[in-house]
């Protein structure tokens, strides 16, 4: 059989599909992404359920702006303050990156609390999602830890003295307190090593832990599925959809529902 010459369109398709197939054959990643994108979620998930991914976005903003800041910031008591001034006043858009990192931190924390509130009010921490709630609490604690360690880095008066008192308060904890205070300070007093130590904790240790925990968190979200709102009539919370076929096809009715933004 003589092979038919491919049309232009088919050639294009092949050119696009080839690398995708290549990747899929060797990693299975394409299948994974497809599974992630096309997995079913309850029909009536709503805006409250976007708070988790909004938190994720805030974390990504922190990671990106933080990386840029790390290129100019100097974690040493003699130059930290100057490097912050340099970033804020001299570097092109430095103030923007620093401002986004600084206020992004607050937004991140607020979103975490709001997301937690939504999970609580929806009762979404119940069986079988207990573990994901615990991971969430660890994320919350790590997020607050980022706030505490990041606050010292500008090495200005507010930063310095808030941290001195903060460390001293950690130090009052029974048993572990003094060790924790020593660990944070890198010694018995706040000193030159304290700053670089806070920096290492702030930009490596805790973010690494947060990234890993977010990975676990999302794995569980995908594995278990998100809950439907508690007021929904059915377990999956589809609710009566006008004209939707019951066999899983999201037809025009589903789409128009979506357009109405419900």
């Amino acid at each position, binding site marked *: 059989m003589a092979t038919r010459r491919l049309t232009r369109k088919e050639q294009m398709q092949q050119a696009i599909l080839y690398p995708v197939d290549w990747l899929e054959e060797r990693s299975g990643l394409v299948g994974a992404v497809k599974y*992630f*994108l*096309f*997995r*079913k*979620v*309850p*029909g009536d*998930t709503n805006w409250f359920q*976007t708070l988790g991914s*909004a938190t994720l976005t*805030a974390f990504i*903003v922190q990671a990106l702006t933080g990386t840029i800041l790390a290129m100019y910031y100097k974690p040493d008591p003699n130059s930290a303050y100057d490097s912050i001034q340099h970033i*804020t006043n001299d570097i092109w858009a430095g*103030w*923007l990156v620093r*401002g*986004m990192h*600084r*206020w992004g931190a*607050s*937004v991140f924390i607020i979103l975490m609390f709001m997301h937690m509130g939504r999970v*609580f*009010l929806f*009762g979404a*921490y119940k*069986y*079988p999602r*207990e573990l994901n*709630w615990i991971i969430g*609490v660890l994320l*919350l604690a790590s997020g*607050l830890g980022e*706030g*505490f360690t990041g*606050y010292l880095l*500008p090495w*200005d*008066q507010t*930063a*310095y*003295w*808030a941290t*001195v*008192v903060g460390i*001293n*308060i950690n130090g*009052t*904890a029974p048993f572990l307190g003094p060790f924790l205070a020593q660990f944070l300070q890198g010694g018995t007093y*706040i000193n030159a090593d304290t700053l670089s130590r806070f920096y290492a904790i702030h930009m490596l240790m805790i973010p690494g832990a947060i990234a890993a925990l977010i990975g676990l968190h999302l794995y569980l979200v995908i594995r278990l*599925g998100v*809950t*439907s709102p*508690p007021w929904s009539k059915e*377990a*999956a919370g589809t609710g009566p959809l006008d004209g*939707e076929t019951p066999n*899983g096809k*999201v037809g025009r009715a*589903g789409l128009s529902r979506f357009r109405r933004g419900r």
Partner: protein
Amino acid sequence: MATDRIAERRRIFKQYKDDVESRGKPFYPFAMFHDTVMSLVVVVVITGLAIVWKYSTPGDHIGTDPGWLGKLYDDPADPGTFNFVPRPDWYFYFLFYLLRIFKWPDTVLLGTIGLPTVLLVLLIAVPFIDVRPERRLLRRPVAIVASILVVVSMGVLTYKGATAKESLGSELVAKVPDWAKTQGFSGNQQALGGAKLFAESGCLNCHTYLGLGGGFAGAPDLSAEGAKNKGIDFQIRHLENPAGVNPGSPMPSFQGLGTANLKKLATFLESSKGGK
């Protein structure tokens, strides 16, 4: 009983999975659309805050003058400084304010470590305390009450922490002659110098003295510190290393002030017998 409950919740979850499979909608594009919009809002808000932060400061938008969202940066850190305000970022205000409520040493541990630890443990325990499958809010009265209580108390503590007034060193220094009269150390140059340092060094952010000051971190009233007759040497040692003298003290070291200044401070403290 317990096995019934386990069987019941397994059944509910299985039904959920089946329902989603047969009647759910795909994440893309439906939920993804909402997520994307929300994420864009987040990025826009963060960028907006950064812009307001910078451009609401007066003049050429550099330096330490505050704008609507506060200063771009404060003066450089100075461990030997006078006058500081130990103020954390806003999401720690509630803890910060707790420190004003509890008194050293009996209950301050409760406030700083006890309560946060209890809260953390309680938070982790939530799914194990509330094991019923019921998720409708109106049928979870305890959850409603608990969340209202948490939100209100966090809100109040944060607000109180945000509005707590710190006295400025310059205003306090004006009080030194009054203090000297009340305590009767007007003739003592060392004590007068110490009183000035005391007003300028942020001691009153934590301590109270003759009715002024913070009452923070459970720090004791110092109006009658001298009446305890602990001696100048003790005071210097304590100022150099508070935690070394009173283990667990959250008071920072004031070694940075230098020996001469510490001596003045100590004299002032020992001259403070509480007035007539």
